[in-house]
């Protein structure tokens, strides 16, 4: 039985599509039965509709990729109207991933999403804090605390805070978010990274830096998941470079309750189907009845 319990609900399996790599699910319909997934996290939403960044948005690195999409999205209300009905029609756990550059935007977004049937809200705190000079909310504990505390009163849904690996101290960050009212944590988001076009002598991306994801970051992400699992008691959704079922088992052994698959969906649109099958087979062979048996066994 690959089922897991997340905030009192049963997920068919621990495999959730990561935000920004799966759109709102539609595009992958041709490739798999979406209801077979543990869950789907929506493309990152913001209060206002965003066109995203200009210039090149994708760049490949050794076993990874950098992206500078810039949260192109139809806005929270656009999502609720245009995309959510489709997602709710699927028999899977739906996370609404929410970003923002001001506290007000986060609060408005959470309040609106609270009134919908999404299963959980995933707070992306890697967005730049426009009021405080552009450093992301997810770097320093105090900034994260202020956001989590601000939105907490506006929803009774499970509130998952998605941590940035660029945080100064990932353990302190996890502890702070839990104290501030997070019901769960997901980690990691992308690593801040740089690529330079040596011929034009310019950064590849208009924004200079961009977010690194994919297999290359897995060993660091896995370390961070263990660090956080040893620090807090709330459920952890682990991610970062997962490409196969073996990776998933590692993330669960490091302390994840569920996991997300991001960049690997681009490598193979049916990768999650294969991963779920692999987990099933592994559990059978190893006589594991419930993934809880192995969760966090790496202390």
């Amino acid at each position, binding site marked *: 039985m690959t089922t897991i319990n997340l905030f009192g609900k049963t997920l068919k399996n621990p495999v959730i599509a990561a935000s920004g790599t799966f759109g709102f699910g539609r595009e992958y319909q041709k*490739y798999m039965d979406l209801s077979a997934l543990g869950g789907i996290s929506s493309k990152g939403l913001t209060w206002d509709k965003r066109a995203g960044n200009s210039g090149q948005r994708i760049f490949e690195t050794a*076993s990874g990729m950098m992206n500078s999409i810039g949260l192109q999205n139809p806005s929270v209300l656009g999502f609720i109207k245009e995309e959510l009905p489709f997602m709710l029609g699927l028999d899977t756990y739906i996370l609404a991933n929410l970003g923002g550059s001001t506290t007000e935007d986060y609060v408005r977004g959470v309040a609106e999403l609270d009134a919908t049937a999404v299963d959980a809200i995933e707070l992306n705190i890697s967005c730049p804090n426009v009021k405080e000079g552009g450093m992301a909310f997810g770097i320093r504990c105090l900034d994260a605390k202020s956001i989590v505390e601000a939105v907490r009163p506006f929803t009774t849904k499970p509130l998952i805070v998605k941590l940035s690996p660029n945080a100064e101290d990932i353990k302190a960050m996890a502890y702070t978010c839990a104290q501030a009212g997070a019901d769960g944590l997901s980690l990691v988001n992308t690593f801040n990274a740089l690529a330079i076009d040596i011929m034009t002598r310019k950064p590849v991306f208009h924004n200079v830096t961009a977010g690194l994801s994919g297999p290359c970051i897995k060993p660091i992400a896995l370390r961070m998941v263990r660090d956080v699992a040893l620090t807090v008691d709330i459920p952890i959704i682990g991610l970062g470079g997962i490409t196969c079922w073996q990776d998933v088992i590692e993330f669960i052994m490091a302390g994840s309750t569920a996991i997300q698959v991001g960049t690997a969906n681009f*490598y193979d649109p049916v990768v999650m189907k294969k991963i779920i099958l692999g987990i099933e087979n592994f559990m059978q062979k190893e006589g594991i009845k419930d993934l809880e048996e192995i969760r966090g066994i790496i202390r």
Partner: protein
Amino acid sequence: MEAYRKVIVLENTQLTSDMYEMKVELADLPQPGQFYMLRAWAGVPYLPRPFSVCDADGKSLSFLYQKTGKGTEIMAQMRSGDHIDILGPLGKGYPLKEGNVAIIGGGVGIAPLLYLAKNLEGPVDVYLGFKQEAFFIERFKPHVRQIFISTENGSWGHKGFVTELLTDSYDAAYACGNMLMMKAVKDKIDGLLYLSLESHMACGIGACLGCVQKTAQGQLCVCKDGPVFESREVLFDDY
């Protein structure tokens, strides 16, 4: 349900110093202008790469490609009997118009145009621009009325850009090449003109939003909403 398919490489031929044609066993008959995501690796590179359909006969599919980086280098080393993973056909191809038609291609941008020429009814004139080495010209001959050729160094045909030969006297026109050339074509052709755009892609299916193009209708995905766009739709402000 669709997925990557493992197909056999039938032929992989070097055409010029850096141009190759790879023929794979596949019974698809895609629309001209559609593309496939190809993958012959699983680490470095990581992501698949998009390639236009250059030819198809119901039994096999051809890709014309230029060796420009790691992925195409690996492809260039493949031999018949090797396997390659392939997803597609993807995207929206060229609408097939009747009447006098012009096809304009620059360098590797001629890749989708042969299969297009084969599928068009009306009299087709082809304009092919190259840097130094011309290629693929014989392949167009049976399917077209006239061929205009230019090279930047004058080694074949007109010396200069192929757009200098182009006249605005067609019922419809189709172009593929780099953005600067497409802009030049757009400036010449007032009528119906379809452009096949390029962009850096990750997923190829509309999920990552990495390949967007500014259009009159907002940001569209080159992979899902394109790669072919009506020229009037395309906003060239980044170029």
